[in-house]
């Protein structure tokens, strides 16, 4: 007992600090061949001819795969759609001669050695016929459309309320502005890779960088027609993903294709440049029109967004679905449109939609607060919404007000002077800004099992993933708590398609979902063990009931007299059992979902220091107060928020992938030119978890923490920069050039 809620070091920590944790590209197999991907340099067109002779002549080269010699593959689009695919027809690697985007894989060169494959890949001669392309959302927005088919799990914008136009005109203070954030790429440190081990009897074991082993298993089955029971996908360790591993990507396809065609093991590792060629956070333009009356109460809230998608899928995210949750307003209009570009389909990147949408909402709220001459926090409190006005539902919990207050106090917000540029210190302009964050508290149907072995070891298993989030550790804590054993006695098995069913790990739902499933399995195991213990000869528990015992110290004890106990190991010995195993499952409650809205909230406060002359911005302080229900492990939970804040700093100040529209290609496709925050950029980040008991949101009272840290952070920093400089930059990231203008 006492495991849940206790700061606990990662159970996979030792493996990670000693280098023994194995990632997708690190599994060895005899006779392993190496595949190197060749990418298209043109954005749209057709492959006219491929000359592979020079590549094939390189010693050690085994085969060059292109659309001309690919195996037979699934025909229907639905066979290519994975469990999180948006509506449309997914991209099919090496399917035909069509080029849909720059960077599209056009060939896989396989050789005995990596170096030979890499060299041979440069010798492939491919002739292209080019067609006109478009990669500029600014131009394409004219043809934006409302997606006809909605993406599953993404609610469409709320219906209009009242009269947004009349409310706007009636307002005493108004703001109409457009905000934009360019393309971003996930760039997990581990490049996408797949090692496919040919087991010799038709079976393959696939080590893939993915957030969902079972999603990849079904994809391989559906696309290649390989029976599911001959495909095992393992993702025991995932070197970051942030959404990039939600869908099966082409490294998986190519490695499986090559391995099954060559009947030998194959490894495909993408280059960092190729990490910019399969998914991205879409370019987003947001139009905001807000008004408030003389008391600072909102009279109109209009939020319209247009984002890019590809030509073949309607990727959608919830950009304009947040204002109605945060602010009370009776006149609203929300609109969401897509525009097609010749790029790969965008994908979910940490807090998809919210990270972006809250830039528009929270920067606009800051601007309107200034127009109303109100402190930005006070302005938000005046418009605080107690209910989800879009759906007319209560929240399972919403400790956002507390988060505002606790965060403000820790930050010292009360000492802020309102006027921009008023907090100068020497050559530095100091700015304090704040913003709100919100994300869904989701839960998904998940199964797990729990085993007690005769030696007292507990093993829990679920096909979910740990993408750095701490899943291994929280599941161990949950099992240790339920069964009253030491954490060291618990083994967690995840990241394997052979294990009980789990959706992809994403959306911040893993802790609530896999956590509840493991808990359910452990509760079932408790029941069985108790029954067995009661049935033992002279059992001290003979007259007890399950609710009158506790599991603690590796034994089942009478709650009233803990000295009267049966050791768990004795239970198995007495019944001559080598193990006892139980299954458990958890699903969201449909009734509760209809009655309540469920969200995580945060209040972010930021301090920036801007060099008055050079305009270099440094984020010197962040306080992020998070209301996320029950915190299973304060240590790893804090890390999740720290990480979200750091990525939010990137969104505010550094991260943008820039296409050269002439070539339709991302120019800064490497880590020297796509800037992510580095050590020197990150100073004091203070994370606070606000007390928020919530019995309703999920069985364990957990809301999830993967995304909330990034949401609100970019706007808080942007607002702080305004406070420091008096300049409103509405195009993020806010780079020096935009402040020097």
């Amino acid at each position, binding site marked *: 007992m006492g495991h849940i809620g206790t700061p606990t*070091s990662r159970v996979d920590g030792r493996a990670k600090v000693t280098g023994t944790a194995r990632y997708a590209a690190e599994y060895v197999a005899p006779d392993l061949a190496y595949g190197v991907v060749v990418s298209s340099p043109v954005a749209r067109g057709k492959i006219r001819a491929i000359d592979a002779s020079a590549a094939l002549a390189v010693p050690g080269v085994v085969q060059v795969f292109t659309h001309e010699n690919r195996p037979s593959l699934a025909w229907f689009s639905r066979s290519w759609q994975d469990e999180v695919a948006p509506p449309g027809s997914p991209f099919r690697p090496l399917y035909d001669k069509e080029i849909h985007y720059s960077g599209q894989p056009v060939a896989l060169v396989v050789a005995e050695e990596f170096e030979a494959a890499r060299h041979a890949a440069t010798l492939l001669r491919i002739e292209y016929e080019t067609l006109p392309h478009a990669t500029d959302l600014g131009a394409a927005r004219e043809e934006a459309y409302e997606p006809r088919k909605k993406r599953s799990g993404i609610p469409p914008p709320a219906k209009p309320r009242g009269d947004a136009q009349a409310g706007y005109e009636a307002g005493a203070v108004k703001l109409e502005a457009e905000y934009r954030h360019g393309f971003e790429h996930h760039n997990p440190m581990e490049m996408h890779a797949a090692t496919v081990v040919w087991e010799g009897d038709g079976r393959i074991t696939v080590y893939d960088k993915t957030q969902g082993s079972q999603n990849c298993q079904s994809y391989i089955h559906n696309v290649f027609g390989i029976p599911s029971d001959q495909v095992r996908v393992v993702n025991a360790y995932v070197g970051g993903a942030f959404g990039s591993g939600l869908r099966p990507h082409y490294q998986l396809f190519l490695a499986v294709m090559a391995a099954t065609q060559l009947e030998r093991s194959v490894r495909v590792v993408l280059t960092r440049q190729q990490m910019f060629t399969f998914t991205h956070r879409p370019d987003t333009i947001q139009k905001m029109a807000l008004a408030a009356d003389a008391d600072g109460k909102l009279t109109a809230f209009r939020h319209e967004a247009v984002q890019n998608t590809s030509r073949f899928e309607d990727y959608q995210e919830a950009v304009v679905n947040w204002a109605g949750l945060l602010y009370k307003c009776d006149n609203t209009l929300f609109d969401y449109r897509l525009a097609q570009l010749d790029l790969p389909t965008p994908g979910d990147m940490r807090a998809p939609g919210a990270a972006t949408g809250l830039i528009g909402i929270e920067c606009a709220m800051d601007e309107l607060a200034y127009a109303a001459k109100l402190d930005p926090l006070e302005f938000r409190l005046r418009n605080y919404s107690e209910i989800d006005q879009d759906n007319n539902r209560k929240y399972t919990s919403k400790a956002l007000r507390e988060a505002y207050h606790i965060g403000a106090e820790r930050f010292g917000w009360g000492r802020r002077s309102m006027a921009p540029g008023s907090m100068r210190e020497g050559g530095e302009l100091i700015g304090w800004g704040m913003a709100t964050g919100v994300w869904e508290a989701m839960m998904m149907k998940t199964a797990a099992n729990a085993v007690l072995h005769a030696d007292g070891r507990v093993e829990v298993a679920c096909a979910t993933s740990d993408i750095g989030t701490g899943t291994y550790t929280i599941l161990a804590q949950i099992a240790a708590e339920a069964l009253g054993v030491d954490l060291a006695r618990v083994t967690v098995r995840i990241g394997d398609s052979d294990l009980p069913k789990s959706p992809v790990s994403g959306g911040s739902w893993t802790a609530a979902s896999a956590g509840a499933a493991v808990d359910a399995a452990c509760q079932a195991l408790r029941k069985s063990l108790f029954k067995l213990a009661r049935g033992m000869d002279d059992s001290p528990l003979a007259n007890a009931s399950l609710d009158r015992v506790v599991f603690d110290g590796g034994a089942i004890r009478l709650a009233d007299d803990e000295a009267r106990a049966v050791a768990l190991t004795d239970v198995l010995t007495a019944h001559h059992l080598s193990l006892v195993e139980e299954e458990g499952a958890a699903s969201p409650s449909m009734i509760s979902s209809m009655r309540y809205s469920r969200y995580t909230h945060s209040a972010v406060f930021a301090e920036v220091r801007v060099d008055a002359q050079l305009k270099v911005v440094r984020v010197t302080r962040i306080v992020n107060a998070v209301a996320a229900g029950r915190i299973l492990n304060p240590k790893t939970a804090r*890390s999740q928020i720290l990480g979200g804040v750091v990525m939010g700093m990137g969104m505010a100040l550094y991260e943008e992938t820039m296409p050269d529209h002439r070539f339709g290609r991302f120019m800064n496709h490497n880590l020297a030119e796509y800037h992510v925050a580095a*050590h020197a950029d990150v100073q004091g980040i203070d994370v606070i978890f606000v007390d928020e008991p919530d019995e309703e949101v999920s069985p364990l009272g957990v809301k999830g923490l993967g995304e909330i840290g990034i949401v609100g952070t970019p706007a808080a920093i942007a607002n702080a920069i305004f406070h420091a400089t008096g300049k409103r930059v509405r195009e993020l990231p806010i780079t020096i050039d935009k402040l020097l203008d």
Partner: protein
Amino acid sequence: MSDTETLTRLSTADADGESVTLTVNGERHALRLAPWVTLLDLLRERLHLTGTKKGCDHGQCGACTVLVDGVRMNSCLQLAVMRDGCEITTVEGLAEGGRLHPVQEAFIEQDAFQCGYCTPGQICSAVGLIREGHAHTAEEIRELMSGNLCRCGAYTNIVAAIEQAMGEQAMGEQPAARGDGR
């Protein structure tokens, strides 16, 4: 794969290669290697020391940091033949017996990683940094660790872990500056 198989493979693939002798984590390897093999690919693909990570292959991320004769370097930017005769220490070589290096211990204690992929590079870099002796404050640690990216954003805890390890090493001496640099 057994050691014999590894050696067979090395000699077959690189039969015409250069002869290179490297000591990796105290173990001497006499190898024949093609000149285009990087130190990183040698470690990962031929010696199966996959603790050292490939994050960019361009010296831009630091995930491949190892200690070459005690000095931290990006192993993706070294051809293995350039390091003939050198002593290489990778993350696998830091623990002594079953005992973790103080930096490794501190990383676990401070939760200085999430996905763990940049971690071996951060740890090797931190060991090199401490040996260099130039960093005395959190600000200096941040500056001198900036070649090691962490996309999970564990920087705050990495700096705390390095401070902890430095503090332990400096025990008895003047206590290391622990200010937050602000």
